[in-house]
């Protein structure tokens, strides 16, 4: 997917003016925050679980190479194959060659952000392989030719009326009289269309929430069951996962699962937690004949040991964006690439370069709500600040910003001069306001006064008044 983050400001403005989007975001915001809170409040040990989940990932990242190799050995031992992909292109080619070998014309897909990251659908279509998204949200946005606006709710930006419109447009055999006014009826309609696809598909592609080194197992969590059908019914199952998904043991995975769904949707557990280990064994009732894992790096290993190392703990629950006032205001598409919200503002510059994604780490008030709800305790604001530092070092900020900051810092570093300048400027500005005491506009303050008034300074600075008070005190004491 081509990165559009440099147009963040324009996209944000458009999003704010989009009434449909704002209506959808308003509902989503209330839902996610309330549900998470209820789930967390009901589990007294939640804070301890966060700490232990974090410790598991920290430990794994310290020994990532060892656990990945151990995982690979177990996958092979269970009859599967592992394909190491350093870049997105490597991963796409690996998927394609498996599809070619299987003679695949149609592939079904479970919901996966990593295949969004490598823009797999566009690629497969160009190569003559038809990808069919089976998660309801993903299916809807595939029909619309869109990308996910949220990492766990891809169609979060839509209202159900828009979905009904899309279904009526695309599902040409749908009787006009059929009621599609409720989410349940929309789901029923999507299932009706999708069910036959599982049987037609030659290959099923899923992501992974965890890769377990101990057993060579991949784990996905879903709420619709589409993931299970995707990976069980076709002859070939391909798991595409990035390297930081590995955890040492099943016990570790189950620990992290306890914080994952609670943080994401407020469920104790997702409806389906599905473990896959290798292809179908002789006594298995079902399962694929081939089981492939594509292990993608795509820039992650170069985050290890840097200030962005801790970002690799992320388990993609979406809690950060669910609680982010900026995400609530502009929705996911404004961010201009695959990962939106606070986690996207840290990850996107890491994966595509801060020169292209510079807006994202800047577009945060640093309110800290994301960090306070992150199940993996990732210091997201701190890492956004680190990106701002990299940007500043490389001189990537706009010249006016740099000049303004330099001008201000020159005075802020010289208290005497600062005092002198402010004791002249502030009373003048206060006087300029006249009796109204508010500015509706002011030169150089357009960013402020575009949407709000600026209260005038009361009168003289505190420091001026304090000096007078101290002088009066001394004179009073001397007399």
């Amino acid at each position, binding site marked *: 997917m081509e990165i559009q983050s440099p147009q963040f400001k324009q996209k944000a403005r458009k999003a704010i003016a989009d009434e449909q989007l704002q209506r959808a975001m308003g509902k989503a915001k209330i839902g996610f925050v309330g549900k998470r809170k209820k789930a967390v409040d009901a589990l007294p040990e939640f804070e301890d679980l966060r700490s232990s989940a974090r410790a598991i990932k920290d430990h794994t990242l310290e020994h990532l190479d060892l656990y990945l190799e151990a995982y690979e050995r177990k996958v092979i031992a269970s009859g599967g194959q592992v394909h190491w992909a350093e870049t997105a292109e490597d991963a796409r080619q690996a998927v394609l060659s498996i599809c070619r070998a299987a003679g695949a014309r149609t592939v079904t897909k479970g919901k996966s952000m990593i295949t969004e990251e490598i823009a797999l659908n566009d690629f497969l279509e160009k190569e003559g392989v038809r990808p069919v998204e089976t998660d309801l949200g993903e299916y809807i946005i595939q029909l619309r030719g869109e990308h996910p606006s949220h990492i766990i709710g891809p169609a979060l930006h839509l209202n159900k009326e828009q979905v009904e419109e899309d279904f009526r447009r695309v599902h040409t055999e749908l009787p006009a009289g059929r009621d599609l006014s409720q989410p349940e009826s929309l789901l029923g309609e999507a299932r009706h269309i999708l069910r036959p696809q599982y049987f037609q598909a030659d290959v099923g592609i899923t992501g992974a929430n965890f890769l377990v080194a101990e057993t060579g197992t991949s784990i996905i969590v879903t709420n619709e069951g589409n993931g299970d059908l995707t990976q069980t019914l076709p002859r070939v199952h391909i798991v595409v996962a990035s390297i930081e998904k590995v955890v040492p043991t099943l016990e570790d995975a189950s620990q992290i699962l306890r914080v994952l769904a609670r943080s994401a949707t407020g469920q104790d557990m997702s409806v389906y937690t599905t473990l896959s280990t290798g292809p179908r064994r002789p006594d298995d009732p079902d399962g694929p004949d081939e089981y492939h894992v594509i292990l993608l790096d795509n820039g992650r290993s170069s985050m290890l040991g840097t200030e962005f190392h801790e970002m690799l703990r992320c388990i993609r629950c979406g809690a950060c964006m669910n609680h982010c006032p900026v995400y609530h205001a502009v929705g996911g598409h404004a961010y201009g690439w695959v990962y939106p919200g606070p986690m996207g503002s840290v990850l996107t510059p890491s994966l595509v370069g801060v020169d292209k994604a510079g807006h994202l780490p800047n577009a945060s008030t640093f309110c800290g709500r994301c960090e306070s709800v992150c199940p993996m305790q990732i210091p997201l604001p701190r890492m956004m600040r680190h990106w701002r530092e990299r940007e500043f070092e490389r001189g990537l900020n706009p010249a006016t910003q740099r000049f303004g900051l330099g001008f201000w810092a020159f005075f802020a570093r010289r208290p005497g001069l600062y005092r002198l300048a402010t004791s002249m400027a502030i009373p003048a500005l206060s006087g300029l306001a006249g009796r109204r005491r508010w500015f509706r506009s002011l030169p150089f303050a357009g960013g402020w006064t575009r*949407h709000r008034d600026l209260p005038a300074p009361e009168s003289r600075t505190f420091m001026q008044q304090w000096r007078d008070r101290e002088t009066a005190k001394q004179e009073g004491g001397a007399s």
Partner: protein
Amino acid sequence: MSERTGSAEKFKPAKEEPLKEESISPKRVGLFVTCLVDLFRPTVGFAAVKLLEEAGCTVEVPMAQTCCGQPAYNSGDREDAAAIARQTIEAFEEFDYVVAPSGSCAGMLKKHYPSLLKGTSYEARAEAFSGRVHELVSFLVDVLGITEVPARHEGSVTYHDSCSGLRELGIQQQPRKLLSSVEGLELKEMQNSDVCCGFGGTFCVKYPDISNKIVEEKTASIEGAGADTLLAGDLGCLMNMAGKLHRQGSRVEVRHVAEVLAGMTDKPAIGGGGR
């Protein structure tokens, strides 16, 4: 109030040093005025002085202070931020306590100076300094053990939890506790008082449209509370919310919480009170 306990999960306030019962001499407090209070609303500074003096502290205001450095620090300019941090530490390290009427600036001094100066010759000084820094209201309640103030304010107020104070310093109950002791005052909680107002320092001028969208949500919550006056502990947030309320033609007055606690509401509210 139990519904609010969840939001500050991650950030627990740092352990406070115990009250020094044995010290008979009054505590020497260096007031970090903050740049916005210095320039825009000195009343808040004098309210802080009054509260601290009434609590038995001697208050001094070092002239070598300017700003906490957040505009530089949060813009990625570590060099200027570190220079300002060193300058602030030098100006304040002689005091028993450093108190600021702002959770955001106090958070910068207390939580971010140590990491900013880590690995430099100021590392140890920044750590020692950090232990003495407090936000005003939490200093009164948590360090001095004050449970009530002798102030009076006829009317209803609603309180916005500014982000840095809430999530970096764990300030939530302290202002509510003291406000409940103000005679004549009724606290009407707003919905989502812990959600950002959209100020974010330079954010509000770099991304004015997003900031506006966020502050519009906030002013709707404020109006929904039905209180006469909006209070918070950070002037940046207050100016943002006051500016939006005024643009919207609201009748809600806006003040720093210290003004109410110090009984200084005879002074005009932010923006002079007049329309």
